[in-house]
């Protein structure tokens, strides 16, 4: 354990304290205590921030399950550090904001902050783990905590629906990603991402390399809401706004981006990687921005805009991955520019989108609605909110003097690079991006002007709006300050974190190109990109002004065939099929269930015996069989046969008991007093149990006398008997493993026990015993619960 490990685990360790703080410190908002965690983590991670010297990656490893190659390895390189700073930095601001947003009287704050801390820890773990399986575990934990946070107001049907949807989609992706990870493990023999990267050439030769790529991308795309998996994000907006600002814009949805960036050294350069990510990204970019204009709920608008911006970052990562392709080695600098744009825009997006979400939360909080049809004319009432919203939205639209302008220009450069260097018809990429950017411009204007200008409609608002309390405004102010700061001084982060991050994403491109440096500038001269931006402003303004004229376009889209419909229908269908399948075998008849169990046993054990050709009859070691042993055996067989033909339950129980007692006789003969004693007591108690159950059993029914019933059960019975007999006989003839009998004969020396059987039970094989008693206990609780439940249900009636 090092300080880094503790840093990752701090949020988890803090979780148990939260309910206590909530309960005993009711007068102080729980958020103030929780605020300490992200703040101290932010300070801790900021201490790694390279100010003057180059950043050296830090690796700290703790073995967890070494036999399975699972180590809790924390790998802090520049890319991880960037994410850790975003998670803790925005986390701090979001917690601060939530103190004013979440009422301490009405909300269950202890749940809220516990989930939030779970998420923070999971997210830190995801971006800092070097071990694929540990990363996977943290990754799924982010989905779980996101589920809990979306369903925070679980009384609402829509919250539950949204939570379930996000869970289904991201977890499906997660499983597929696990499959991809396992293929990588098989191909490379290691779970460490760094080691897999170092043997990327070998791994790419594996037959399943391309499937692994797609499996992993499916995980990344579902998490980062890429088309067509984006449908969960708008529904996730049911979460409280601080959560939307944190999880569904700044951090969790970036996990997919992180994964793609992190694994680019392994997959980058392959055409499949380039095409999949670029196409998915560009389609998402367009669709998200197109749909955002249609929304009247401001939060839904922001959700689609987040989808669109994530697509933008993805497409840049796709284009940039060509820096690793051998065919474009000469222009790797240009492709590296696309990666730089991706990383820079990722930072920008987290900042301005966090700010915008907080502003929408404030509008909602102060006016009681987020519907742009009811909002308007708030500029004079909420001037600070207006300014902050404008800064965030203009940055998103890509206007100067805000940081979004720089990254938007770099984005166009990146896509133009692809069309100039790869193939002429790829010019379609910047064209789609340009159209999408016009829509982006339009919805940014809707966000600012529909809410704050125009006629003021107090009659449509639930409360009288006024400026938000200063505490609520601090967080978005800090973010807005960064938006402006990064425009004027982008090089504050260029050399220290952007450049090493880019080098971590495409390390192979810089082997012979060590003097490549990132330099950002707000103005690049009069070039294609600037013309594109001017075009966006012109066309975007026109579209915004005449919005009511062309809005009908959306009505012509056949909404019946949307992805959401497909999802809902799929859900119903799965449920229907599931019910049908379950009903077909869960008949409620015990003899059916027993039949399944026995058939399975015969198929598995008997099948293995046959397939392995394992039947051996070895009588060489056997002792002479005495006459009385024959007699005992005969009695057993006779009572078994008698049991078949008796019509009375009582007699058949007695027959079973006879067999049991004879078995204990055998134990006595073979000098196993422990077993004999146990068998005798078990027989006694089970007879008592049988007597008890007698009252509840129906009379020997008609079905038992039917021929078909008899034949089927007879076949199963004979098959089980034969299988077990054959296995029993074969056991004698096989010595697959070294016998461990010497432990038992030494039991007095090793365990201080003269009774070998007992020392096996409680000492040598104590683990077996422990699990057995757990099983016994579980079975007992099960029976108890079943019976009590039946009682309860009967009483209800």
């Amino acid at each position: 354990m090092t300080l880094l490990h503790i840093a990752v685990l701090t949020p988890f360790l803090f979780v148990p304290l939260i309910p206590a703080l909530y309960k005993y410190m009711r007068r102080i908002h729980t958020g103030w205590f929780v605020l300490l965690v992200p703040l101290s983590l932010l300070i801790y991670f900021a201490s790694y921030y390279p100010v003057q010297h180059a950043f050296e990656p830090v690796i700290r490893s703790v073995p967890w399950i070494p036999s399975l190659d699972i180590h809790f390895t924390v790998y802090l390189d520049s890319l991880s550090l960037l994410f850790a700073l975003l998670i803790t930095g925005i986390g701090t601001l979001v917690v601060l904001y939530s103190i004013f947003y979440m009422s301490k009287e009405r909300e269950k704050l202890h749940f809220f902050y516990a989930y939030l801390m779970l998420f923070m820890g999971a997210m830190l773990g995801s971006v800092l783990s070097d071990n694929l399986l540990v990363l996977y575990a943290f990754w799924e934990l982010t989905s779980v905590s996101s589920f809990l946070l979306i369903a925070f107001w679980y009384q609402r049907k829509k919250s539950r629906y949204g939570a379930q949807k996000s869970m289904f989609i991201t977890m499906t992706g997660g499983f597929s990603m696990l499959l991809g990870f396992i293929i990588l493990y098989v191909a490379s023999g290691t779970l460490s991402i760094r080691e897999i990267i170092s043997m990327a050439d070998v791994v790419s030769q594996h037959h399943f390399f391309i499937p692994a790529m797609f499996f992993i991308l499916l995980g990344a795309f579902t998490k980062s809401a890429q088309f067509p998996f984006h449908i969960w994000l708008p529904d996730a907006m049911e979460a409280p706004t601080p959560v939307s600002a944190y999880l569904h814009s700044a951090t969790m949805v970036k996990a997919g981006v992180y994964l793609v960036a992190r694994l680019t050294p392994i997959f980058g350069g392959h055409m499949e990687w380039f095409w999949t990510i670029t196409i998915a990204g560009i389609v998402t970019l367009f669709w998200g921005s197109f749909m955002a204009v249609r929304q009247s709920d401001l939060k839904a608008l922001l959700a689609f805009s987040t989808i669109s911006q994530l697509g933008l970052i993805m497409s840049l990562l796709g284009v940039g991955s060509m820096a690793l392709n051998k065919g474009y080695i000469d222009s790797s600098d240009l492709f590296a520019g696309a990666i730089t744009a991706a990383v820079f825009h990722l930072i920008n997006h987290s900042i301005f989108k966090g700010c915008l979400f907080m502003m929408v939360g404030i509008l909602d909080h102060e006016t009681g609605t987020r519907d742009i049809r009811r909002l308007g004319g708030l500029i004079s009432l909420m001037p600070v909110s207006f300014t902050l919203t404008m800064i965030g939205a203009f940055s998103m639209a890509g206007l100067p003097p805000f940081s979004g302008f720089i990254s938007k220009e770099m984005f166009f450069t990146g896509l133009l690079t692809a069309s100039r260097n790869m193939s002429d018809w790829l010019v379609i990429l910047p064209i789609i991006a340009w159209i999408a950017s016009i829509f982006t411009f339009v919805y940014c204007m809707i966000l600012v002007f529909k809410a704050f200008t125009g006629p003021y409609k107090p009659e449509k608002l639930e409360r009288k709006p006024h400026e938000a309390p200063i505490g609520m405004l601090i967080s978005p102010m800090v973010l807005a300050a960064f938006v402006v700061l990064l425009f004027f001084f982008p090089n504050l982060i260029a050399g220290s974190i952007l450049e090493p991050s880019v080098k971590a994403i495409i390390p192979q491109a810089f082997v012979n190109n060590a003097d490549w440096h990132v330099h950002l500038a707000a103005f690049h001269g009069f070039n294609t990109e600037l013309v594109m931006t001017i075009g966006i402003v012109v066309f975007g303004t026109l579209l915004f002004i005449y919005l009511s004229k062309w809005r009908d376009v959306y009505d012509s889209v056949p909404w019946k065939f949307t992805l959401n419909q497909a999802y809902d229908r799929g859900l119903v269908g799965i449920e229907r099929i599931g019910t049908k399948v379950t009903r077909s075998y869960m008949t409620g008849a015990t003899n059916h269930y027993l039949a399944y169990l026995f058939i399975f046993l015969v198929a598995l054990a008997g099948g293995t015996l046959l397939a392995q050709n394992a039947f051996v009859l070895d009588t060489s070691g056997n002792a002479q069989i005495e006459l009385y042993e024959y007699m005992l055996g005969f009695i057993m067989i006779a009572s078994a046969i008698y049991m078949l033909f008796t019509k009375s339950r009582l007699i058949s129980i007695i027959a079973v008991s006879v067999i049991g007692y004879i078995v204990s006789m055998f134990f006595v003969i073979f000098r196993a007093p422990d077993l004999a004693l146990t068998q005798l007591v078990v027989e006694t108690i089970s007879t008592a149990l049988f007597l008890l159950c007698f009252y509840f059993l129906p009379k020997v029914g008609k079905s038992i006398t039917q021929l078909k019933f008899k034949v089927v059960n007879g076949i199963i019975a004979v098959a089980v008997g034969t299988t077990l007999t054959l296995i029993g006989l074969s056991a004698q003839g096989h010595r697959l493993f070294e016998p461990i009998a010497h432990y038992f004969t030494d039991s007095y020396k090793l365990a201080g026990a003269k009774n070998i059987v007992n020392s096996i039970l409680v000492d040598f094989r104590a683990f077996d015993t422990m699990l057995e008693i757990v099983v016994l206990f579980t079975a007992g609780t099960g029976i108890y619960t079943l019976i009590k439940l039946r009682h309860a249900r009967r009483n209800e009636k």
Partner: protein
Amino acid sequence: MKLKFTDVFLQTATKILVYIIMTFSIYILFAGHHNPGGGFIGGLITASALVLLYIAFDFRTVRDILPVDFKLLAATGVIVSVLTGTASFLFDVPFLSQTFRYVDLPLLGKTELASAFIFDLGVYMVVVGTTMTIITSISEDDK
């Protein structure tokens, strides 16, 4: 328990027998380390003594003289056994490592104390608890 007949012979015999069976079961529990016996068998024998009580007397009487929640007993047993296993972590040895030591005790003289016994005690509690939970809940079910 549905068995409502009042059998004087059975009840009189049970009063004596239960003590004998109980004593025997506890002997079996302690003797397990060196002689036939142990927690599992001991637990079963205790359970059979209790079943005898239930058969001879009605359910309510037994619950009044023996107010034990068998579910709780079983759960405690599981916890005791698992904790004995985890105790070995304190001595930096693998899970469920058992140890033993010879100690001179008053009256008993030189006695072997084995950590495995505590584990076995847990087994005993689980067996008694589970068996009796099953039997009592089934016998209660006819109400």
